[in-house]
Every structure is written in C-alpha cells, then in structure tokens.
C-alpha cells in the first residue's frame, strides 16, 4: 500500500535518507526501526509531503500523497504529537481536524473515548497535557478520518505500560481489518511484539528487511554459546585450541560454537561447567550489530 521508491533526502552533503526502498502491505503492521538519527522521521515526513525528497518518490496505494483528495480520510498521520497549538484544548484540536475533513462532531467524542481521554481531560489546553495524554490525542487525531493507512512516528512514546498494550491491540486489530500500518520506533521490544514485518534502517540506509523469523534465521550461520565453568581460563584455552572463537563475557565466555561442541571440549578438558546455553543472537543483538556503524556508543568506543 505504501511504496517507497529509491528515496533519498540530503541536507547539504549529508544524506539523511539514502536510496531507501520498501513496501508496506495491507493487513500487516510494518515496523520501521533504527537508532536515533537514522532517518525514520525524515522518511515519514516525505511520505506525507511535508519534506520534499531530493530523489525518489513515495506513493500510497499508487497515489502521491499530495494528489489524495482530503488525505485525512485515507491516511492517518501522527508525526509529532506536540506539533499543535499549545493554547488549544484537546477537543478543539480534534474538532478542527474533523471540520477540515468534513466529519460530524460526534466523531470527536468517539475518538476521545477510543484513546481514553476523559471529557474533563479533553477540555484542558494542550500545554497542560502530560506526554502520554498528548500522544493519545495524536493517535486520536490519526484515527479520526477512519483511514485505510496509518503512518505513526514513535506512537508508543510516553505511553504507560497499559497504554502500550492498548495501542498494540488497537494496531493489530486495525491491520486485521485490512488496514496498513507503518510505525517507527527505536525500541525493539515494542515493535517485535506487534510488527509482522520489520525494516531496519541505519544511517539513512536499509540494513535488513523481513519478518522476525527471517531476520533471526539469517544469523543461524554463526552459532554462539555462553558458557561458565569452574576454570574459565583452561576451558578458554581448550576451546581456542579446538579452533573456536572465544571472548570473555560477564563471568563466563562467549564461544563461536554450538552448545554440544562446547560440552565436548569441556568433557575432554575435564573442566566442570556451571552454565551452558545457546547464545544465539536475539533480535536486539542483530539490531545493534546491523546498525552499529550508526550507533553513537560504538562510534565513541572505537575512536
């Protein structure tokens, strides 16, 4: 439904988004993941015509966003919940959007109820909203026009655990009814639970793409185990002697071998193991590794 085609956005010599292409399909939640400054928000702004692309294009269901008549009725957008006049009440903000889209006034009350903002809260001015309340209002704003496509930039930002769970089920149901959802995040755990498909972006480039199983399967070639023993030094020497990569990790070792291989080496080296488990990469490891060139920590550590 959303087709990003060789999208590039440069600021001077710096490419915030660099030749990015992907698709989001109806009935699926697509997670857009990347570290800070990876280019997620920039890509999403281009999608809705707020940022002109340098090269490439984005279409939604084959139509450019700017060519969609009354786009709020087709595409729900939440880019920055705080980008509203701070002196307006929450209800007034929704009301203006409903007026613009040509929706009846009771749609506002419906949406306030959906996102769990009480009538008294809805009459407060935005400057007096808590972060989570503002976020709920932003979600209500995106859902107002009953769109087929949702583009949400960090929708869980500031939501409490109950709120995050609520949002998860809301988006899941929305996708099950055939809607297309693209949501960005830098919180992997959050996306892992809802996204049917994930797009990993680092430094403006897509570094991996696929569903969770496919992403993890791609790492199978490099088995790792975590092992702790009564004599890590002897075990490490034996493992290295057997040709496996060994690195200290915590109280034990991380070994580039299967648990069975580690067990056999330990047996022959006569070292007592106290802990041995599969250290296969989690999605988080994968994420950190793939985006590591873009990680501020990694840059700081290696330079």
């Amino acid at each position, binding site marked *: 439904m959303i087709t990003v085609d060789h999208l590039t956005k440069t600021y001077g010599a710096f490419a915030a988004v660099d030749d990015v292409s992907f698709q989001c399909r109806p009935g699926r939640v697509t997670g857009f993941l990347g570290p800070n400054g990876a280019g997620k928000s920039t890509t999403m702004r281009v999608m809705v015509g707020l940022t002109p692309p340098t090269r490439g294009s984005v279409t939604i*269901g084959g139509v450019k966003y700017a060519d969609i008549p009354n786009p709020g009725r*087709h595409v729900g957008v939440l*880019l*920055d919940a705080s980008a509203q006049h701070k002196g307006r009440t929450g209800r007034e903000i929704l009301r203006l959007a409903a*007026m613009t889209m040509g929706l009846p006034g009771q749609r506002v009350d419906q949406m306030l109820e959906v996102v769990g903002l009480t009538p008294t809260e809805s009459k407060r001015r935005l400057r007096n909203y808590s972060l989570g309340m503002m976020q709920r209002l932003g979600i209500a704003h995106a859902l107002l026009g009953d769109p087929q496509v949702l583009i949400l930039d960090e929708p869980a930002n500031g939501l409490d655990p109950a709120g995050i769970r609520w949002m998860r089920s809301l988006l899941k149901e929305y996708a099950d009814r055939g809607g297309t959802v693209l949501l960005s995040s830098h919180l992997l755990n959050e996306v892992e639970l809802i996204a049917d498909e994930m797009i990993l972006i680092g430094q403006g480039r*897509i570094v*991996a793409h696929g569903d969770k199983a496919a992403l993890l399967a*791609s790492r199978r070639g490099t088995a790792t185990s975590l092992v702790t023993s009564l004599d890590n030094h002897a075990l490490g020497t034996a493992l290295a002697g057997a040709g496996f990569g060994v690195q200290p990790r915590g109280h034990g070792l991380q070994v580039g071998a299967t648990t069975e291989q580690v067990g056999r080496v330990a047996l022959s080296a006569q070292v007592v193991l106290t802990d041995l488990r599969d250290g296969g990469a989690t999605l988080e490891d994968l994420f950190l590794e793939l985006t590591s060139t873009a990680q501020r920590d990694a840059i700081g550590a290696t330079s």
Partner: protein
Amino acid sequence: MTSTPLTPGTPPPPPPPPPPGAAQAPMLNVSDTSGIPFWRLVLVEFRKSYDTRAGMWLLIAIGILVGLVEAFVLIMSLVHSSQVYLTDFGFIGTGLGSLLLPVLAVMLVTTEWSQRSAMVSFALEPRRIKIVMAKWLVAIVWVLVTLVVMWAFAVVMTAIAAVAQPDLTSWSGTSGSLPAFLPTVLDQILTMTIGFALGALLLNTPAAIVVFFLYWYLLPGVLAAIGAIRPWLAHALEWINFRVAMSPFLDGSIHTGEQWGKILVSAFLWIALPLGFGIWRILRAEVK
C-alpha cells in the same frame, strides 16, 4: 521475505525486490472522495483565529484600544468644548486599524510555524496554497469586522457628543463630506496584506512585526531624508512610497495616470514582492 544481514562497514544490500504481485499492489480508491472545499478551509482558519487565548485577546485588545482612544478623544473634546466630527472618530479608528490589523495578519501566518501546527494543517491539506489563501481571506474578514466595529464606536461617540454639546457636534466630516468608504476599506486590506506578506516571508512573529513597524514608522522618515538630498531623488522615491502614493486615492484627489502608476509600483514592491516570495517559501518549505 528474506533479509540480508550485514557486517559493519560493508555496503548495504540492494533494496529488497518488490514482493510477488507488486504489479497489482493494492490501490487506494480515491475516486469517491472529493477534495476539501475551499469554504471549509476558510471556516477552519476563521475558527483558528479566535479559538486560542492569544488570538482571542488580540482581537479583544484591538476593540478595547479603539474604544479607549476614541473615548479619550471624546472626553477631551467635551472638556475643551471643541468641535466634534463623526469622521474624526472614523479616522482614529482606521489609523489604529492599520497598525493592529497587520499584526493580526502576521500572527495568522506565523503561529502555524511557532506552534508547529503547520505540520498538521499541511498534512490534512497538502495543497498549501489553499490554506494560505484561506488565511488571507480570514484576515480580510477581520479587517471588515474591525471597520464595522470602529464605525459603530464612532457613531456612539458622536451621539454622546451630540447630546452633550449639540451645537458643536457634526455628523459629517471636517470638510463636510464623509471619507470615501471603499478606498478606506481597500487601504486597510492592503496595509493588512503587507503584514500578511511579511509574516509569510519571515515565518517568525517578532521579526515580521518589527519589520512591519520599521516599514510603518521609519521608512517615511528615511525616504524623506534621502529625498531631501536632491529634488530628483525625492521625485523618484515617490514611486516606492506606498503610503504617500495611496493618499490621493484615499482623499479622492486621484486623477493622473502617474498617481495610479505610483500606487501600482509601490504596491508591487511592498505587497506583491514579499507576498510572492513568502508564498513561494511556504509552498516549498520543509515542515517539521
């Protein structure tokens, strides 16, 4: 779906091939949706002009200021038993209006940027020019409302004077005639539009207001000073002095093509040029 993992440093994978069936990728059916009618955008922008405390208070302040100044003039006239003309109040009102309405126009444009609500406005209506035009129309509505309120004040003040000192009160103008109504309205709209244009050009409330006041207070003096150097300079500068160029139009003494030419040239400089660049900037700006 496949994924292509990377080791840091290697070039990224080619973009994933489009999934099977990409050719018949789901289409968005927009055929039975009509665009947002312009009048609805005008209504929305009108509502936005008074639904915040800042907007509401600016409007109230304009009303209060006009009322206060006119009441002050009335009291002074009564105290000094001087002649009171209906048009005097009208002039005071329009004078204040030319200062305050441009500020209102500036804020109609710039608050979208300072509050960042342009992100929402332009996402809901990507044809940005329609929103800009709707805002301008709203500013015109407020010019008209203000003029009506001003004249209502003027009538009330004159009526009070007529009761207090019937012999010294005149329901006509100083020169015996009311100032031409349409030129005044047009002048107020054009002056407001200068504020609107500066707001669009600078997209910053204080900067636009400061530049407007520089234009309003400083420019005539500067032009006069430059003009004092050489008579031919003074002559040439008349072509870029919009306020001076407008005065024969306002008092009905406009006759020559040169006078009209001066209005057109100076209006182009002070209205069309900044407005054109301002709109161009708004249409192209990255909104975030």
